[in-house]
């Protein structure tokens, strides 16, 4: 007891002490590490969506590095002589030939190509679902707006990175995708043809594009990803994770498990699970079989040309665009390209980027939030999110209209007109329905708290009346269902002077729409009911 130093007794303890002290002597890290190994992480299945993004990114780095050892990013002409005999003696680019070599002559090469492609699809799915989780639960609110912006950046770069990635093999399908990208560049007013000629080092397809895309795909964008992901995670770490409301969970605390050992084991284990699932898909599910498409030539095309899903909605918008072009003073402006592939996506991404600030402007709520919203309790936001999903699904469906047409025996024209009209009519309907459903769910919560849950037990009263016995729900559940902010408790109903002019009026109307709510059940009401019941 006299000695203040405790010396470890077990072998593991001694090893740990040795390493920790070594680091501490040089970095002074003991205090920091001690604090952070005890850091608490809240537990919820939806919090692993961001982890899936991170892990699939790591898988992309690992499998991508493997691919670079064999892939030859060159558009010089070669004659293929390899294990895939149907293309023997065919003249093609070195990029395509080396992708064939990877797929047929390198052991595990095809597997790695497929893992890489599947990981990219999972990466994009996880980003989008993670974004929806953050959106629907209001996790983007103060103080996390910056991380929302970084997330939007990652999503944007992810779409570009994915497109560039499947452009590299220089097969007939990817070449067609590049041709479309070139047409988009070329359609930009004033500078379009210059941009296209600079990007391609001359006329399409040229021999410069794939080497350039390769550099962007394996160095520039991955470096950007690494930087953004690092900042994203550091902010999550520093600001601490949000948590869902529940008993004992407050704005001022965080409830969960410590980093070491539980969270480390779960998160570390989860990396291996994501890897395992990706490896399984790569092993059994063929993806992008480039040998079937043949080498790229501008005069050929394969039917059923489809981009990857995260580009599909863009392609769907392009397909449904009206055939509009303006001819003006000897110049051509292609609205049929500009509107669906640049203007509309631009507006969507700008809207998404500024959403946290727009919502704060509407609600006037500038407080910190660490407790997540249950989506039903913010009907307007939830409806807006559902409406966006509807928009994307319709655009995506039209991106696959040829596939849908052949599988379901429909006409492409019919699908095209359905989605053209649906793009404008379905999202508003989805908005209204979702908002109603949210309010109904709020009402159901209220009933549950005041009248208890249905037990399924029927009792016949002496009068012959049949009733179902209801059982009160637990105090914990009551709290979870009623803890959310009520409009009258909102701190900053907008000051009257802020509501003048058309901007003020718009803000007021949007504020009212935003605050529509079914009042949460209160203890007073429950008591009153209890008094009157028996």
């Amino acid at each position: 007891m006299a000695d203040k130093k405790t010396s470890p007794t077990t072998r593991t303890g001694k090893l740990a002490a040795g390493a920790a002290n070594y680091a501490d002597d040089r970095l002074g890290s003991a205090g920091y590490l001690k604090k952070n190994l005890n850091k608490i992480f809240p537990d919820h299945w939806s919090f692993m969506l961001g982890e899936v993004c991170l892990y699939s990114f790591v898988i992309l780095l690992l499998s991508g590095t493997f691919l670079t050892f064999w892939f030859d990013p060159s558009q010089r002409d070669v004659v293929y002589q390899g294990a895939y005999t149907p293309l023997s003696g065919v003249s093609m680019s070195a990029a395509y030939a080396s992708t064939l070599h990877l797929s047929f002559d390198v052991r595990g090469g095809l597997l790695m190509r497929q893992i890489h492609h599947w990981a990219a699809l999972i990466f994009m799915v996880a980003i989008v679902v993670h974004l929806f989780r953050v959106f629907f639960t209001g996790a983007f609110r103060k103080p996390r707006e910056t991380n929302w912006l970084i997330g939007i950046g990652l999503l944007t770069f992810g779409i570009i990175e994915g497109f560039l990635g499947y452009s590299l093999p220089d097969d007939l399908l990817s070449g067609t995708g590049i041709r479309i990208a070139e047409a988009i560049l070329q359609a930009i007013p004033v500078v379009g043809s210059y941009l296209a000629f600079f990007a391609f080092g001359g006329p399409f397809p040229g021999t410069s594009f794939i080497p350039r895309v390769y550099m962007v795909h394996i160095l520039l964008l991955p470096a950007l990803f690494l930087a953004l992901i690092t900042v994203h995670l550091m902010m999550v770490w520093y600001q601490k994770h949000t948590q869902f409301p529940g008993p004992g969970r407050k704005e001022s605390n965080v409830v969960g498990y410590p980093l070491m050992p539980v969270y480390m084991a779960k998160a570390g284990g989860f990396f291996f699970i994501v890897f395992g699932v990706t490896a399984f898909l790569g092993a059994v599910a063929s993806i992008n079989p480039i040998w079937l498409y043949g080498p790229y030539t501008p005069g050929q095309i394969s039917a059923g040309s489809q981009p990857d899903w995260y580009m599909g909605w863009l392609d769907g918008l392009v397909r449904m665009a009206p055939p509009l072009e303006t001819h003006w003073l000897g110049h051509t402006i292609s609205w049929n390209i500009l509107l669906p592939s640049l203007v509309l996506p631009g507006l969507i991404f700008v809207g998404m980027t500024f959403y946290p600030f727009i919502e704060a402007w509407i609600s006037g709520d500038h407080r910190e939030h660490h407790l997540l919203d249950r989506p039903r309790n913010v009907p307007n936001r939830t409806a807006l999110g559902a409406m966006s999903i509807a928009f994307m699904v319709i655009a995506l469906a039209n991106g696959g209209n040829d596939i849908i047409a052949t599988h379901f025996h429909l006409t492409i024209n019919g699908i095209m007109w359905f989605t053209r009209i649906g793009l404008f009519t379905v999202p508003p309907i989805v908005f209204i329905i979702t908002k109603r459903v949210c309010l109904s769910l709020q009402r159901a919560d209220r009933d549950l708290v005041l009248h208890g849950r249905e037990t399924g037990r029927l009792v016949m009263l002496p009068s012959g009346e049949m009733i179902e016995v209801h059982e009160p729900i637990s105090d914990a559940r009551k709290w979870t269902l009623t803890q959310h902010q009520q409009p009258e408790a909102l701190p900053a109903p907008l000051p009257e002077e802020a509501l003048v002019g058309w901007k003020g009026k718009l803000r007021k109307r949007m504020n009212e729409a935003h605050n529509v709510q079914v009042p949460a059940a209160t203890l007073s009401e429950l008591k009153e009911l209890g008094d009157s019941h028996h």
Partner: protein
Amino acid sequence: MSTQIERFEDPGLPEHLHRKADTDPKAAKRAEQQVAILFLLSAVGTVGTIASYIWVHPQVYLYIPILGSTNVQQACIGLGLTLATLTIGLGAIQWAKKLMPDVEQVQERHEFRSSDKDRDDLTKTVENRVEETGIARRPLIKRTLGLALGLVGLSPLVLLRDLGPMPGKYLDTTDWTAGTRLMLDPANTPIRPEDLEVGAVAQVLPELPAGTERTLENIGKDAVLLIRLRPEDFNLDPERLSWTYNGIIAFSKICTHMGCAVALYEQQTHHLLCPCHQSTFDVTRAAKVIFGPAARPLPQLAITVDANGYLVAKQPFTVPIGPSFWERNSKNG
């Protein structure tokens, strides 16, 4: 009714419930064994991966229902990796869930906002430091610095100029000129009208001067589709009709929407369909757009036959082929 509304109160963290493995040593032992078995399976997976790499023949294919023809070695390596990684993950999570402490802990959040004093001090410090630079008092420095910083970014932009040549008139022209023979692709042989039956389609490219090698750039703007119809099927004005020869009509194969190859020809309806965005062109009406996002018909190439009976171009394309661009100066065709 009282004005004071009572809301529900937070009952606080629920009481911790012990897991079976916390109280029952047998259950704990069982969990331990499960974790160990999973880790052992991972080792088996790694051995399997290495064995597949070495001993499975790389060129053996097996037809598996749903999956199709599958390379056995690639699949074995992949399944080995799956087993090796998945079981590490499952083992670690089982370990965490069953055996590691599962008592929820509470940590207070720290407030982000600094004290008013710190905030004021920072503002003052920044103000002072900016003041010390004298930038406000020395507008000459401020403006010249602005100019310098504004311009410095231009250099890298200018240095990128050599990424490619200027487009010039490239996009307006093709290799087709009056008298250029139509060469079948990929055979690269000239073609006579009688080589093409009614209803048939052929892709042709212009004959290039001897010694010139055909590049993908050439194909990207020269590709032409020949279609033979019955002459009475045409619904063309006299000029366009004179551009056809014995029912053979020629169009640029490059879509006027986004440059894909317009490759799908429906013989029954005489429609050409672009597989990329489903723009549909009516061959009988000079490739007029009848559906989809394309705004202009496919440019028609005027053809005739030369003295030897081979199909040749009567004249170059009268309009630029392919997708639109800013400098493009023509409305129709």
